[in-house]
């Protein structure tokens, strides 16, 4: 778990950097010596192979020959023939270099759209627009209930929902999120909805900005700025800062990762941290680290889109937040046993 935390923090701190710089892989082993002793394999590497000596004209097969013989005909030593990986041979390098260049002027001599001259621009226009939309211009709608669950715990059992979705193309999307929880027979403890503009800022991450409206425990509106995506090691990360109309600044970092036990049985560790820049007594939020949640859910994907799960989640209120909770007669540490359904469409 410790490494999970570390990765979460790295993953959330670094993603924007990673977008631009690409990521680098830690050396999996001590760095190899810069000049390893030559091996049989290396002697077959393209840089050490003398392409000029290879007689490719002899590679031609004729109808009578079995192709097995082809490779033996290449002028390698017999030992090399065993180990040469042809995929490594850069035959381009053997050919006469051909300069890169722009098309000659006559390349642009035709009509801008050849079909217009035959079928008429008016006839072509709708199909051209349709083609553009079909080959890369589509939009999609996605809805996912990552967690919708019944929570068994000491005292009154509770419930939780955590859903999100989007509508849009590859780069720009409208993104919405909602989560909330409570105990049966009591007023809802927390409920919020976010409406965000989401923009892909790299291969794996989206930058998201918009508003969050809380309906419980109190109505309150926040501006949201966050980042969501896939961190190295396949961690799904969602990190956001919230600035309320009262001037309170808080932040939330969530991370989860799917561990496939079989093709359909999946264990999902999950962590969530809430942070605050100041005390917000009326919401029971203390400055600094406010709450920590660690969860472990085991789901079975009857279909990719439909997977019931069971799990356990531990919540801690930390520091001043714990004091607020105790003052309210609540336990700052709660263990939930959960059963729920993950679904999307």
């Amino acid at each position, binding site marked *: 778990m410790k490494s999970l935390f570390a990765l979460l923090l790295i993953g959330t701190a670094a993603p924007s950097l990673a977008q631009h710089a690409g*990521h680098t*892989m*830690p050396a*999996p*082993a001590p760095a*190899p010596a*810069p000049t*390893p002793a030559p091996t*049989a394999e290396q002697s077959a*590497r*393209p840089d050490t192979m003398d392409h000029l000596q290879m007689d490719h004209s002899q*590679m*031609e*097969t*004729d109808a009578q020959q*079995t*192709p*097995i013989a082809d490779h033996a005909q290449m002028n390698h030593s017999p030992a090399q023939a065993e180990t040469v990986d*042809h*995929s*490594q*041979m*850069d*035959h*381009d390098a053997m*050919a006469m270099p*051909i300069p890169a*260049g722009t*098309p*000659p002027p*006559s*390349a*642009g*001599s035709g009509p801008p759209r*050849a*079909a217009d001259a*035959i*079928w008429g621009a008016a*006839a*072509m226009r709708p*199909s*051209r627009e*349709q*083609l*553009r939309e*079909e*080959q*890369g*211009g*589509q939009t*999609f709608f996605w809805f996912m209930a990552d967690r919708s669950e019944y929570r068994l715990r000491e005292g009154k059992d509770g419930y939780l929902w955590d859903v999100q979705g989007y509508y849009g193309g*590859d*780069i720009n999307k409208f993104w919405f999120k909602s989560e909330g929880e409570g105990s049966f027979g009591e007023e809802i403890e927390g409920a919020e909805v976010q409406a965000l503009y989401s923009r*892909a*800022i*790299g*291969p794996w991450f989206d930058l998201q900005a918009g508003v969050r409206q809380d309906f419980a425990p109190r109505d309150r509106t926040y501006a949201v700025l966050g980042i969501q995506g896939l961190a190295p*090691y*396949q961690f799904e990360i969602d990190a956001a800062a919230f600035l309320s109309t009262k001037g309170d600044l808080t932040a939330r970092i969530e991370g989860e990762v799917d561990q496939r036990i079989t*093709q359909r049985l999946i264990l999902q560790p999950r962590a969530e941290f809430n942070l605050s820049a100041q005390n917000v007594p009326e919401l029971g939020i203390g400055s600094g680290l406010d709450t920590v949640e660690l969860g472990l859910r085991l789901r079975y994907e009857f279909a990719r889109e439909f997977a019931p799960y069971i799990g356990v989640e531990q919540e801690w209120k930390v520091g001043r937040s714990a004091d607020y909770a105790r003052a309210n007669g609540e336990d700052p540490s709660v263990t939930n046993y959960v059963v729920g359904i993950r679904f999307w469409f």
Partner: protein
Amino acid sequence: MLTMNRRGLLGAGAGAAGLAGLTALTPAWARGANIHNGVIRSGSDEVSGSSIDLTIGEGPRVVQGRRGHAIAVNGSVPGPLVRLKEGEPVRLNVTNTLSQDSSIHWHGLLVPFQFDGVPGVSFPGIKPGETFTYDLPAIRQTGTYWWHSHSDLQEQAGHYGPIVIDPAGADPVQADRDYVLLLSEFTPMHPHAIMDKLKKGEGYFNYQKTTWTDDYPLSGEDRRMWAQMRMMPTDILDVTGSTYTYLANGHGPLEGLEFLFNPGERVRIRVINGSAMSFFNVRIPGARMQIVAADGQNVRPVAVEEFQIGTAETYDFVVEPTGEAMTIVAESMDRSGMAVATLASRPGARAAVPALRDPPLLTMADMGMSGMDHGGGMAGMDGSDDSISGMDHSAMGHAPANPATTSAAEPMGAMDMGGMNMRDTSMLSPDVAVGPGLDMVAMNPVDRMGDPGIGLDKVPHKVLTYRDLVALEPNDDLRTPSRQMEIHLTGNMERFMWSFDGKKFSSVSDEPIRFAYNERVRVKLVNDTMMAHPIHLHGHFFELVNGAPADRQPQKHTVIVQPGGSASFDLTADESGDWAFHCHLLYHMHAGMFQIVTVAPKGDAPEQERVGEHG
């Protein structure tokens, strides 16, 4: 040996009724639309002559008990075999009874561009209820081709069929029997639903992922490396046997497609990969196949025991079957399913169908790190050599391995020796747009034409590679290309974005790739993704730069570019007009891996002399 070709086409047991040449006499009930009350038939009729009628319709279809909606031409999937004759013109009258626009593209045929059949590029498409006539002048080629819809995702639903063009003279390939084997897929899922799943659920169709309990020969270190990269070593095909039933001439593997033979006969099989998203590994256990044509063009016969056929490619082979029966196995590249046909010496004779082999894994070479290989092509991934820790960093894409892509001046600067940078965008030319649609850059993209294809580098028998292909006839243009252009195949697996040079077609639709008329250009395709892409250029053949002598470089219309590698071809741009140029994986094209190639009109071009035997 020298008897004339006897043309048998597909037969599925007793269901082979009505296969004889139905042409203009095809009854209305067989022509498609919804007018026949039964389901859409599997298998093709044959149409020929100077005027051919084709009707696009739709209806329910059942394959091995699975039911779906299909688009059919003349009432069957595949649609009819269109049999043409070299040197003769043909009028193809295509009627669209669908409620949406449709089209037919003649894949591999040299035609005036306005009859190429790509809506939005070469013509406006065929409106519902409309009949469009493709008025083709004298056919300039022979061999095996196919046709399919280029509208929306109709091809997935069954809108495709074979083409055979008979030579005007003698066929250099002598065979006693001549069959077409069109490989494709069936799924009850709507094509748009598949696209939707691909966009939203990464690896949605892959039920061969790595897990805690799998048997893959991967060390913990390998697994962490893949997770670190946010990629999967099992990402072989996007859509798999988890939804597809693989088809041989429209028949599922249990539906018993058979090709009859008499012992001692030479049987020619024209294999067409008419699938939407599948690469197949084709073999006949116990037999050796002589490859005699690739993409319709005759090649010097090559004897192989297996070959991989990319989407939209065609290969003709000759086999002399022995025994009572032999099984033709077309295993999908990820080994999640197979299409099956039988060479049978009598109706109903069967040979054993081999089990699916273990799913393959992507390798270091597929990551674009061929130079780091230890010679096996799978170094680091096969468990036998202790993986990454054994990697030779001194060989990582530095200057010597490929001067073309890694200049000696900056051998270290761009590379983090603390590890591997899988997205070193400094290696890309300025033409490539770096953005969310680009998740990887091949570090050392070497020419991989000698590669037999994913999963076939370790099999113990001879597998065809592009390097084995040598044109039977000399090529007619031997000029050295005047320029080289490099096109990067780019993508983002997680977002299912696919593009050329980082730009989806939707963002470059007004900026085609331009060629002067009769210009000779070397096109180098660099694959910056971990998937193999079959890249197809309409209206032309190009010559693979595969090590064959210049005048015998094989001509193709579709070239597979292996993951993390490159492939080059020489093109003589002598077919004026606008032509589609795209990845033939249907959903990759649909996601944006598509461009228009514009060849300038002949009239404005200075006359350039060709240097070929046929001038």
